[in-house]
């Protein structure tokens, strides 16, 4: 799994690629904590290059969403396809994120 964060004004784009799973998700947690601590107003999670996600990875993204929403911030997920899209649909996260 690789990820990078880019800030452009109020918007932060968090790009995650590869496999976001039980092994790799802990690497992402400090970045999520930082986004929450900084109270970023708008976050776009770009999963265009995400190949695989498991329940641990979903948990991290849902955690980001819930914590940012509590701060009044906006979180969107873009670029879902293939296996990650199947997981998001199964877990009915397409209600929350316009995927």
């Amino acid at each position: 799994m690789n990820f990078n964060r880019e800030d452009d004004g109020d918007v932060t784009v968090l790009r995650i690629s590869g496999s976001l799973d039980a092994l790799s998700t802990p690497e992402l947690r400090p970045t999520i904590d930082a986004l929450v601590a900084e109270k970023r107003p708008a976050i776009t999670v770009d999963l265009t290059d995400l190949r695989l996600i498991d329940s641990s990875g979903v948990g991290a993204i849902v955690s980001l969403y819930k914590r940012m929403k509590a701060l009044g911030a906006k979180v969107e997920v873009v670029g879902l396809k293939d296996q990650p899209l199947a997981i998001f649909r199964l877990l009915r996260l397409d209600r929350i994120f316009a995927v």
Partner: protein
Amino acid sequence: MRYHGAVIHLRVPGTLRYRDLAVRVVGSACKLVGTPDETTGPIRNTQWDNEVVSAFGEAFNNAAIHSYDGKPGDVDIEVDAGVSAITIRLIDYGKSFAIEEVPLPDLDALPESGLGLYIIRSFMDEVKYVAGSPNVLSMTKYLDPARRQVRQPSDRLQDSGGGDSRQ
């Protein structure tokens, strides 16, 4: 010539470090399911493969995180890539759990954990867990939707044993 499919055996340490390797093997095995001549039977598609891989990944997580929980031990994986279905048996020698006691997640509450078994039960057509030494989780997914029984994820288990609770 009759096509009988293939059975693949894999043994890896029961740690998350080997998760990706095991998932890739299962993903490749999916491509062996079906008949060589795809005009004679139902065919796989990417969605079918994605569902199998997703379910297996969660099963491996459970073995590594909950059954072994950092203790050393192997996971034996048997993949029966047949003409009409794939059956995956995941065998571990760690702690057992009571599958029937694992509750369905409340998806409306946006849970951040406790989703693994739900994914397994939802994406596979038959799920059977026999606790003991070893613990054996068997999962089958059919190519032909007509062979699947229409059931809720909570119904898609057949056996269980005692032990801890897990995701």
